[in-house]
C-alpha cells in the first residue's frame, strides 16, 4: 500500500495511469460503437423479415390463416421462425409455440422468451427445445383470434453477448496493463529519487564529500542532480574555509592565552605584598574561567567535526550509568538533594562510552545544580520502543517551553537560575548526542526538568 502511494507520487506513474484511463475510455467508445451498430443491424434485419412474414397473413380468413400457419410451421426447416394462432382466451389453435406469450396485441415487435413445441423440434418428438429469445409481432385478427409471427433471436443475442464480453475483458486488460506499465515506468525514477534521498541523508549527517549520482542520459533528474552537486561543492568549500578560519583563530588565541596564564602565574608567585597577591589571584581565577570556556568551545567544534570512528562500539548502556551514580551521589548529598539511579534491562547501543558519559554527566550536573536543597534528582535507564533511553528528572526550577531550544545554543544561560555554569555544557551535550545520531528531548514537566536521551536512530 505504502509503495503504491510512493509510486503515485512519481509523475511518470501518474502520466501512465492517465494515459491508461484515456485509452480505456477510447476503447470503450470504440467497442460500444461496434456493439451498438451490430446489434441494431441484427435487430433491423430480423424485424424486417417479421414484417414481411406477417404481411402474408393479411386479408386472409380464419381457415386460410390456419392452413398458412400450419404450412409455415411444417416447412420451416431451420426452426428459426415462431408462429402461433391463438383463440382470444390464449388457446393455441395452430402453431409451434409452447404457450401464449403475454404480449400486447398492438402490431408492434416485442422481444420475449419462448420455447418451440417438441413435435416441431429437429431431433424428434421426445426431445425438448431449449428456451430461446425471440422477437415477434402480435396482432388481433378481425375474428378475435390472436396471431403471433416472429423469429428466433437467440443467435443474435449470443453475438451481442460476445461483443459485450469482449468489451469488458479488453477494458479490464487495458486498465491492468496501464497500471502495470505505469508502475514499471516509475520504478526507475523512484529508485533514483531514493538514491538521492539516501545521499542527502548522508550529507546531512556530515559526510559533505558525498555527491548525488549523475547518469549518462543527462535527463531532467541528472540536470537537477548536477546543479545540486555544484551547490554542494560550493557549500563544502565555504565550510572548509570557515573551519580553517576558526581553527586558525583558535590556534592563534591558544598561544597568547597560554602566555597570559603563564605570566600571571609567575607574577603572582613573585609578589609578596598581600593586596597585590589577592588581585592577581582574582586575575588568575578569571583567566582560568576564560581558559575553561575556550576549551569548552574548542571541545564543541572538535566533537562537531568528528567522524564516528575511534571509541565507538557496541556497549551495554549500564556501563555508562554506573560511574554516573558513583560520581554524582556525593555531589547531590553535598547539596542535600535526593539522588536515585534506577535501571531496567536495556538493549545494547552503538556509542563512544567516554563521550556518552560526558553528555550524561553534564545533564546530571545541571540537574543537581538547578535543584534546590531538599529536592530530588533521578536518573533512569530503560527502553522505549526497543531503544535504550536515559532519563534525567529533577525537581528544580525547570526549563520553560520557550527556552527548550535555546538551552542547546552556545552561551545560553537560563534567566531564572544564577549559577557559575559557562552556558556551554548543554551545547556539548547537544554536539555529542548529534554525533551519535541519538535524540535529546526536554519534556513537558509539571515541576523541574525532564531530559531524555534516546539512544537510537530515529530513522531506523
Amino acid at each position, binding site marked *: 500500500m505504502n509503495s503504491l502511494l510512493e509510486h503515485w507520487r512519481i509523475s511518470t506513474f501518474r502520466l501512465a495511469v492517465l494515459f491508461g484511463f484515456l485509452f480505456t475510455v477510447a476503447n470503450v467508445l470504440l467497442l460500444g460503437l461496434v456493439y451498438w451498430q451490430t446489434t441494431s443491424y441484427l435487430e433491423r434485419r430480423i424485424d424486417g423479415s417479421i414484417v414481411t412474414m406477417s404481411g402474408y397473413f393479411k386479408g386472409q380468413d380464419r381457415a386460410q390463416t390456419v392452413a398458412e400457419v400450419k404450412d409455415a410451421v411444417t416447412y420451416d426447416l431451420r426452426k428459426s421462425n415462431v408462429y402461433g394462432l391463438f383463440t382470444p382466451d390464449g388457446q393455441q389453435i395452430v402453431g409451434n409455440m409452447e404457450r401464449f406469450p403475454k404480449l400486447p396485441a398492438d402490431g408492434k415487435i416485442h422481444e420475449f422468451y419462448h420455447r418451440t413445441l417438441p413435435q416441431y423440434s429437429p431431433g424428434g418428438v421426445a426431445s425438448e427445445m431449449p428456451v430461446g429469445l425471440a422477437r415477434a409481432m402480435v396482432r388481433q385478427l378481425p375474428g378475435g383470434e390472436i396471431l403471433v409471427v416472429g423469429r428466433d433471436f437467440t443467435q443474435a443475442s449470443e453475438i451481442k453477448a460476445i461483443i459485450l464480453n469482449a468489451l469488458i475483458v479488453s477494458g479490464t486488460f487495458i486498465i491492468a496493463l496501464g497500471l502495470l506499465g505505469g508502475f514499471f515506468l516509475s520504478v526507475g525514477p523512484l529508485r533514483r529519487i531514493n538514491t538521492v534521498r539516501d545521499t542527502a541523508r548522508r550529507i546531512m549527517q556530515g559526510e559533505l564529500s558525498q555527491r548525488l549520482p549523475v547518469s549518462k542520459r543527462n535527463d531532467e533528474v541528472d540536470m537537477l542532480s548536477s546543479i545540486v552537486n555544484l551547490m554542494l561543492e560550493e557549500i563544502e568549500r565555504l565550510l572548509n574555509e570557515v573551519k580553517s578560519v576558526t581553527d586558525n583563530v583558535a590556534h592563534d588565541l591558544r*598561544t597568547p592565552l597560554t602566555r597570559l*596564564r603563564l605570566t600571571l602565574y609567575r607574577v603572582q608567585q613573585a609578589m609578596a605584598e598581600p593586596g597585590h597577591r589577592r588581585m592577581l589571584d582574582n586575575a588568575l581565577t578569571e583567566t582560568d574561567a576564560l581558559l575553561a570556556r575556550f576549551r569548552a568551545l574548542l571541545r564543541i567544534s572538535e566533537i562537531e567535526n568528528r567522524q564516528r570512528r575511534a571509541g565507538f562500539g557496541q556497549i551495554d548502556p549500564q556501563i555508562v550509568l554506573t560511574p554516573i551514580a558513583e560520581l554524582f551521589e556525593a*555531589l547531590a548529598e553535598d547539596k542535600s538533594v535526593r539522588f536515585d539511579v534506577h535501571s531496567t534491562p536495556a538493549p545494547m547501543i552503538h556509542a563512544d562510552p*567516554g563521550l556518552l558519559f560526558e553528555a550524561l554527566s553534564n545533564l546530571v550536573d545541571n540537574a543537581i545544580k538547578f535543584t534546590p536543597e531538599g529536592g530530588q534528582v533521578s536518573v533512569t535507564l530503560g527502553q522505549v520502543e526497543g531503544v535504550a533511553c536515559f532519563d534525567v528528572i529533577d525537581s528544580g526550577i525547570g526549563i520553560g517551553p520557550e527556552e527548550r531550544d535555546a538551552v542547546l545554543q552556545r552561551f545560553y544561560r537560563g534567566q531564572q537560575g544564577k549559577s557559575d555554569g559557562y552556558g556551554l555544557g548543554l551545547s556539548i551535550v547537544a554536539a555529542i548526542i548529534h554525533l551519535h545520531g541519538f535524540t535529546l528531548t526536554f519534556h513537558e514537566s509539571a515541576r523541574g526538568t525532564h531530559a531524555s536521551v534516546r539512544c537510537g536512530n530515529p530513522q531506523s
Partner: protein
Amino acid sequence: MTSAQIKVLTIEDDTTTAREIAAELEAHGFSVEVEGDGKAGLEKAASGRYDAVTLDRMLPNLDGLTIVTRLRAAGIETPVLMISALSDVDERVRGLRAGGDDYLTKPFAVDEMAARLEVLLRRRKAPALVVKLQVEDLELDLIERVVRRNGNALDLKTTEFRLLEYMMRNSGQTLTRSMIFEAVWNYHFDPYTNLIEVHMARLRKKIDTPGLPPLIHTVWGTGYMLGVKD
C-alpha cells in the same frame, strides 16, 4: 633525592611558552634546557642525559609524534609529557600510543604542567608492584582493601578507596583536579563545578578526623596534596 640533579628537556618552538615552562620547572628545582627545533630536540632527547622531556606536538622540521615514536623505537624510556594545541581525543590517544606518558592540551596552566611532570618522574622511580601504601600513620592495604589511620580501620567507599590510593601513590605531589579526574575516573574532559572538591571533602572527613594532623591539603588554585605539610 636532590631536585637539582633532575634535568628536564623542553622541546618547544614558541619562545614565550618555553621561557615560562622553564621558569616554572626551575622554580620546582629542576634544571631545564630548552630546544626550539624538532630535529635538534630528538638528538638531545636521544642522548639519554635527561630525566624527563616536555614535548610540543607541532615543531619545525620534525613533529612531536615522530620524535616520541623514534625515542621509544631507540629504547629510550625517558618520561615524555606531550603538550599539544590539538585537543582532539583521537590526538590524545595517538600521542599516548606513540609512547608519550601524559598529554596536556594548550592553553594549559603551567602549575598543572609541573604537577604532571613531577608525577611522571615519580612514577618512573616507584616500584611497580606494591601491596601496601603508607604515609605517616595512614595505611592502605591493596590486597585486603583496608585503610587504617592511626591504627583504626576506616570505612571507605569504592570511589574513595580509589581516590585515596591514587593520592597515596603520589604522596607529596601536587595533584590537579583534571589529573585526579583522569586517573581515578579515567575520563578526559573538564570536570564540572565542584565535583572533585565534593569527593575530596568526603574523603577528608574520613581521613583527617579531629585531633590528628591533617594529611590532605589544598594547594590553592591548583589542586590537592597528600602528605605532611612542611
